[in-house]
């Protein structure tokens, strides 16, 4: 499947899978699966299932005891995704939840597109999973009615039984005795009604249940990629070149390493996929020897041309391109901003910047590569198998069908494990060694090979009439673009059809405020782009774009002499294009206004001490096509002498439609609010000499428990289509803090992270 097909895939998934659905009994199990196409094949349901002609995204089986196994094609990286997916199914299937278990599957080409990211999982699976459950229930009721000798319309299904009056039969007995072979066409499936949110009993804002993946994560039995071993494997550690691209190895001297017992030499890697350049790996019988050997092997290079690039160079280019209207791609163009600007009596301009930041997922990158039975077997935790697998196959110079990615728990994803570029050096080393290899990155190796959140530059210009009435806004934003590097088929056209834009580095600027004149232009920062692989870091572009936008909205409100909350509420009127679309954004901006209104009331009576303030923001991550409506507030104290910003409390009011797993949603919001806080006040990794300058946790300092503020999280009860919540909580925190700092001490901070030195410098200015 090509890159472009993912957007079609996504549409199919939420609109209602344009696929047939099959239910068939085989041996001692009942299988239920979506067909590979809209039109049922000539094969019966049983035959199709037997020959695996079905989509992997949804298939499940039930045994004669009524146990249900749900296969999950999503990566588990902390979001407990398998549980709510199974729960959606079980709710419609009316099976016994205590008999449901989940299995995470490996890749297989015939299983279709596999990606876990973008906060898409619930959004994509809600409807098909519901319909799959409903179809399964209907088939079980029909088969159960036959076995009971009653008409099907006298039956109902409940907790694993088909019941008619005082007669009943368990699902397990139906599986044991019934002969089921039923196919629903895509149209038939589409006509199956799914329950409205309030009729659901296993999901919804009041559903209370625990995640199935948690117990093994409390006793050491959960298996992550780094825990895997295969027979006869060597261990390897990489030696990274001085630049991400364009370096070449000129000499390797391992004479000192040769005395190490267990040292097995080194490989200079040549990569047919072009993913890595100038890499050396060292081999050993055990990993500690590989760690030591790296320090004893001396590699000389011709360094790539970015060897001297600094953060200042990236920012300088950023400022140049946001100021040059000929650069980049216009992707929002409402009204006529040029006309508004020519008529303006007054304007304000502000430049917002953010520093380079890293993933620092706790499990360092690692992979085992083994050639066995004519295929490459890769063992690692990966988010986007369908993007990764073609690159791995290219590096191995084999067809894609000869690569299998075996999936494990991910020790943190956050976007770093989407594109599995780290698999390539593992594979090339194994190929060169003629033996299975487990490549493990030490933490500094991992950091230097990270796909960081690019430094960014955003320029805002607002126009006002002579009465300080806001007329319109121009917004230009620049950064390295992850999608351009890793998935170029995903770039979208500009608003006029001209140019290309990485919407993952633009979403958020296409906000839900009604503005008569609004233009947004995204520009790729080529200095950043050439220096590192820009990464999709949790909340991606929204994380830095909305920091600038929502800070600047406060600046505009101040200029217009309006209260920042009321100013926002007035612009969130849901008119025109801001009215939303079915199913994903019904109500549009009015739902965002509702969350802000709730938050305004909640925070109306907070007592503020000296040098304290509350700031607000709204966000609608991750995309206009899947908005989670969030209003965020931060209560901060600023020490004017030291400049230290202390966040005392964070609030968020979230409307994400039907909430499938409320406790999981709250966990995601807790984590993402703290991510937002960490990126707002603590995390920065400036590029120096072509690489990030901090390589481990003694210098890179994300938030720890001692900086955790009180958090107040409210989920709005909603009957609307469910959207993702894995990332959006990150977005609003930084601007809420920046706006709170302004309220507290009258200082406007325009760089992330907001450090004490910025506060003291601004106070002196």
């Amino acid at each position, binding site marked *: 499947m090509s890159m472009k097909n993912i957007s079609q895939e996504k549409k199919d998934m939420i609109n209602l899978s344009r696929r047939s659905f099959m239910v068939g009994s085989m041996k001692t199990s009942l299988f239920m699966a979506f067909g590979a196409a809209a039109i049922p094949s000539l094969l019966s349901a049983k035959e199709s299932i037997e020959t695996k002609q079905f989509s992997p995204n949804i298939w499940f089986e039930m045994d004669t005891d009524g146990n249900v196994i749900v296969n999950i094609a999503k990566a588990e990286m902390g979001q407990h995704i398998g549980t709510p997916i199974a729960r959606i199914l079980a709710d419609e299937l009316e099976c016994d939840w205590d008999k449901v278990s989940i299995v995470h599957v490996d890749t297989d080409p015939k299983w279709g597109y596999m990606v876990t990211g973008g906060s898409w999982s619930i959004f994509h699976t809600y409807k098909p999973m519901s319909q799959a459950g409903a179809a399964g229930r209907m088939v079980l009721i029909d088969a159960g009615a036959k076995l009971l000798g009653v008409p099907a319309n006298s039956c109902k299904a409940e907790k694993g039984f088909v019941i008619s009056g005082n007669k009943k039969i368990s699902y397990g007995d139906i599986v044991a005795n019934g002969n089921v072979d039923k196919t629903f066409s895509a149209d038939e499936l589409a006509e199956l009604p799914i329950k409205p949110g309030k009729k659901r009993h296993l999901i919804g804002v009041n559903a209370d249940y625990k995640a199935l993946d948690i117990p093994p994560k409390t006793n050491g039995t959960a298996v992550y990629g780094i825990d895997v071993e295969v027979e006869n494997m060597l261990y390897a550690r990489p030696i990274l070149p001085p630049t991400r691209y364009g370096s070449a190895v000129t000499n390797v001297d391992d004479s000192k390493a040769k005395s190490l017992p267990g040292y097995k030499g080194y490989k200079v890697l040549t990569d047919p996929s072009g993913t890595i350049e100038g890499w050396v790996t060292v081999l050993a019988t*055990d990993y500690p020897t590989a760690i030591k050997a790296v320090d004893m092997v001396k590699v000389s290079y011709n360094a790539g041309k970015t060897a001297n690039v600094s953060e200042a160079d990236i920012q300088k280019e950023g400022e140049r391109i946001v100021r040059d209207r000929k650069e980049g791609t216009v992707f929002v163009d409402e009204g006529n901003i040029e006309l508004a600007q020519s008529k303006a009596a007054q304007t304000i301009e502000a430049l917002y910047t953010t520093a380079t930041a890293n993933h620092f997922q706790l499990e360092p990158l690692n992979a085992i590569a083994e050639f066995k039975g004519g295929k490459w077997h890769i063992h690692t935790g990966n988010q986007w198998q369908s993007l990764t697998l073609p690159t791995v196959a290219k590096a191995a110079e084999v067809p894609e069908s000869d690569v299998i990615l075996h999936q494990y728990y991910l020790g943190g994803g956050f976007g770093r494990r989407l594109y599995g570029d780290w698999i390539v050096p593992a594979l090339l080393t194994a190929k060169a060694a003629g033996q299975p290899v487990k490549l493990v990155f030490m*933490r500094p190796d991992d950091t230097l090979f990270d796909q960081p959140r690019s430094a960014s530059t955003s320029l805002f210009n607002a126009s006002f009439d002579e009465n300080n009435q806001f007329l319109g806004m121009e917004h230009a934003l620049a950064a390295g673009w992850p999608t351009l590097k890793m998935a170029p088929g995903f770039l979208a056209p500009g608003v006029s059809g001209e140019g290309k834009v990485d919407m993952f580095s633009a979403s958020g600027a296409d906000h839900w405020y009604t503005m008569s004149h609004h233009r947004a232009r995204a520009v790729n920062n080529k200095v950043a782009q050439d220096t590192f692989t820009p990464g999709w870091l949790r909340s991606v572009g929204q994380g830095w774009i909305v920091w600038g936008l929502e800070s600047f909205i406060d600046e505009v409100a101040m200029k217009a002499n309006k209260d920042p909350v009321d100013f926002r509420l007035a612009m969130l009127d849901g008119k025109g294009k801001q009215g939303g679309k079915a199913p994903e954004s019904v109500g549009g901006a009015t739902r965002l206004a509702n969350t802000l209104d709730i938050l305004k009331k909640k925070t109306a009576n907070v007592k503020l001490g000296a040098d304290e303030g509350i700031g607000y923001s709204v966000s609608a991550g991750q995309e206009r096509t899947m908005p989670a409506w969030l209003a965020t507030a931060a209560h901060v104290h600023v020490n004017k002498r030291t400049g230290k910003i202390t966040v005392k409390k964070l609030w968020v009011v979230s409307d994400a439609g039907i909430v499938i797993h409320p406790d999981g949603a709250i966990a995601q919001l807790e984590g993402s609010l703290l991510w937002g806080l960490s990126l707002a006040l603590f995390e920065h990794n400036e590029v120096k000499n072509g690489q990030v300058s901090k390589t481990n946790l003694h210098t890179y300092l994300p938030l720890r428990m001692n900086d955790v503020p009180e958090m107040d999280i409210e989920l709005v009860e909603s009957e609307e289509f469910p959207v993702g919540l894995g990332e959006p909580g990150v977005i609003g925190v930084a601007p809420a803090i920046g706006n709170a700092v302004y309220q507290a001490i009258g200082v406007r901070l325009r760089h992330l992270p907001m450090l004490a030195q910025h506060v003291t410098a601004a106070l002196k200015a």
Partner: protein
Amino acid sequence: MIEFTLNGKKVQTDAASDTPLVWVIRDEFGLKGTKFGCGVAMCGACTVHIDGNAIRSCSYPVSLAKGKNVNTIESLNNEHPLQSAWVEEQVPQCGYCQSGQIMQAATLLDRNPNPSDQDIVNHMSANYCRCMAYARIKKAIKRAATSSVQYFDPNASSEGENA
């Protein structure tokens, strides 16, 4: 040859004396519950107990373990009150740091069965959780503390989830 006690059993290793203990535990003795995170004792994913103290095994040479009692997450046998509290409070997200968090917290409760919020923060702030499940870690420690301390309550019934 270095001999020490691992989860109650005497073990011997031929690993070089400067080998970080974490790799001996994981790769030689196959106990994968202890995780490797940063390699410089700054994250706590590799925390084990050595003679009852919480130690970062990534920065602890195996030679220092000679003659000592080393206990890993596996030694808790899924019976430690922290482990059930971790499930009750639904603490783990990705879960990678949680063996270390639990081992770190266990030494707090050993010495201070009824810690205050500040005691917990002081004891736990060197343990990194990238999912930032800190609020729940704190809640779970409090839950385990109250469930492991015996109070006399004349009105208490013997029923209840912590009984």
